[in-house]
């Protein structure tokens, strides 16, 4: 049965109507019309649906909506503000450095996997600001890309890491 639930998404408390066992992904897409997290496999295998829950990357296709009550969900759309809060910036930038780095690297094919790639890389950079190549590869290994953009995404993570150096905290 559908219930009213309150969840915190991108620092706003939102009331949604959903059966408690509904995967968070469907709530984000259909109730909140967010376009970042998107269906890829529904099996936890690809990373297309990734979001941050209390700063930790999770697969929203495998997370029941009721499980994030009382927690803070950040989607692709909320990453710039999340980054600003972490770095104690007065104002959120238009794009998270990882988003900007992808544009700078022109790491583009279809872009469908970017949501997961960006969310995962943001999590990595928040914990490990200067990751080695091996750390990047291992952190990103659960995120698939059918178009083969890995090499440029790797460069983008490195570039984002450079960009974040020296940003106040």
């Amino acid at each position, binding site marked *: 049965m559908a219930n009213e639930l309150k969840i915190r998404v991108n620092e706003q408390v939102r009331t949604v109507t959903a059966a408690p066992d509904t995967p968070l992904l469907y709530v984000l897409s259909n109730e909140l019309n967010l376009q970042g997290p998107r269906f890829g496999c529904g099996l936890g295998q690809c990373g297309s649906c990734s979001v941050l829950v209390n700063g930790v990357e999770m697969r929203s296709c495998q997370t029941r909506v009721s499980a994030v009550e009382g927690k803070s969900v950040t989607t692709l759309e909320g990453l710039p503000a999340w980054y600003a809060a972490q770095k104690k910036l007065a104002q959120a930038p238009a*794009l998270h450095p990882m988003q900007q780095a992808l544009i700078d690297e*022109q790491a583009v094919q279809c872009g469908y996997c970017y949501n997961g790639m960006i969310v995962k890389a943001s999590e990595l950079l928040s914990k490990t600001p200067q990751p080695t190549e091996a750390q990047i590869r291992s952190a990103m290994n659960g995120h698939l890309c059918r178009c083969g953009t890995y*090499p440029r995404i790797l460069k983008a993570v490195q570039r984002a890491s450079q960009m974040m150096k020296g940003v106040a905290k």
Partner: protein
Amino acid sequence: MSSRREFLKTGGALVIGFSLRDELLGQQRGTAPGPDLRQIDTWIAIHSDNTATVHIGFCELGQGASTALPQIAAEELDLDMSQVKTVGLDTNVTPNQGGTFSSASVARGGPQIRTAAAEARLALLQLASKRLDSPVDRLTVSKGIVSVRGIPNRSVTYGDLVGGNLFNVPFTGSAPVKPATEYKLVGTPVARRDMPAKVSGKHVYMQHVRVPGMMHARVVRPRGQGAYRDGAKVLNIDESSIRSIAGVRLVRRGDFIGIVAENEWDAVRAAQQLKVTWNLKPTLPGNDRLYDQMRAAETQDRVVLEKGDVAGAIGKAAHMVSLTGRGPYQAHALFGPSCAIADVKTDSALIACTTSDVYSTRTNLARLLEIPVEKVQVQYYEGAGTYGHSCYEDAAQAAAILSQAVGKPVRLQFMRWDEHGWDNYGPAHVGEVRAAADSDGRIVAYEYNGWQHNWAVVETSAQLAFGTQAAERDGGAAQQVSPLNLGSMYDVPNLKLVNHRVPGLGYLKGGWLRSPLDLSFSFASEQAIDELAYRVGMDPYAFRQRNIKDPRWLGVLDAVAKAANWTTRRAASNLSKAKVVTGRGIGVGTHLASYGAAVAEIEVDKETGRIRAKHMYGAIDAGLAVNPGNIENQISGQLVQTVSRMLKEEVTFNKTNVTSLDWNSYPILRFEECPEITPIVVQRLNERSTGAGEEVMAGAAAAIANAFFDATGVRMQEYPFTPSRVLAALKKNGG
């Protein structure tokens, strides 16, 4: 025409398809004229703010067409990139340029857009000539401002000349186009225009489109297709199995089953929960017997190319090689499963989907729905990169069938197992090569025999719902032994290519998958060439140089060898007893008109059988490279996918059905496994642009196989090179 104008004012379909729906269909439902290709207005519109909209009949599939084609238009019109917009593909709006496949968007679409833009520019100059009272040849244009040469303040903008009005000028194709030497935009790596929206979540993929009053749907099919001919037959449906989920509706048409619900999660779980008994026939060969059965089939044979006397030349040659190569079925397996929205009324229909060809999809849908084609409108939205004929049209048909049944707009999305399990797979292939060289290392004879079946015509939804008989496409390029990719790059006096068409209805559904069959072709063919070099005792690069005359083939070969710092030595001359050994390989190949060459550097763990691709180099000569940055991206994508396809990808199936239904059972290359990539674009300003989306894969596939030989001294006869297959090959050869 006036409604098209109205439509353009809204800023184009990317705003979001269905907000336009009432505006557009409210007026046009029932008339829906197809755009007239012989009018400039069909291709280009100039707005009063001095910008232009280009109507492009190719879709953005992630390959950058939405950047490269406007780039061509901006060049001819002397506009800035920022002044040129495009609109989404729509059978009511955009011209029919044929489907977006065979790397056609720039190759085929470029010249059309270029000549249309040149003709529009000429028409604009003629108007300006009157307005400024100066002959056309004294006018010059920059950023859409026409001025009289030497008198910059005597000027007028395109916007002032026609803004908001139609040209009403026929498209004759006769206006002169700019010479390449004057290009300012074409040939430069203009940044991709879709990037900012794609990284921020603002880009509207098909999967994001929503319509008021829309229902969510899923299909219910057996997990994994069986033999194409058999489709799937329903024996029994237990409707009580989904009674616990309120508000879902079961739709059945023939053997087509779908679930429709207001709530997406309800549709998803009902589709999983519904108990259906299927009649599954054990008529497939299964992976074990696949190649033997194909090879033993009664085939339709055709000599594709023959010159000289192959048998005679082989008989006299100093060195002869014969080699068999086997390539599996491979899946498109797009990252986001296919999705479509259909709104089918009694006398008309609107379908939004990810088809690569809105026009042919419209024709098929009209037939299926029994609605006249001019009352069916098909719109394109970008989905995840498809790389060929995946389930996009199947999904469009499924949505349409369900919408027709429930009388409401329906959004249908495939589940992962639907997409993996009901794909039109790139067909399996068996190739047998014989090649011979004289003692000087000149190739004297080359023969290729290839076995595979053709592509499926009927989409699964139509087959299940209406019992449409399975049928295959007739012959044609990309479904048969390729005279472009086999042997013909070499200067060989005696050559024979024979195609053996296997009747395909008892196999899996086939379809075009990026660089169709080419990986399998070159896997066999370029290994045979490599082996000849080895027998002659030559370095594989030097051997190819000696046997290639065409400067463009030599150009890509040299470019890639140089990038990889290739040093001369015979293959397998550094064999070692170590557990982990390294090798390098080279290969050439193509899909259609362009030229490709690649070098692979790999590492083989002889104990685990694991291969790691360390570095891939790929060069393409695609004539005039309109946007070299785009092509570099294309080469990178092709190289990574080739590594994935050669090392990991194989559709698995038993006698009744496909069993590779997700990313665990159909693994693809992962981040940790990704090699370093070096893309090389060979720019040819004075050559016609040809495709750049597929043509380095063949050479790259061969380079990997040849690198394996260099590392181990063993020739692989079947790919993908999974650890178990590698270990078996090493064991068999005492490696």
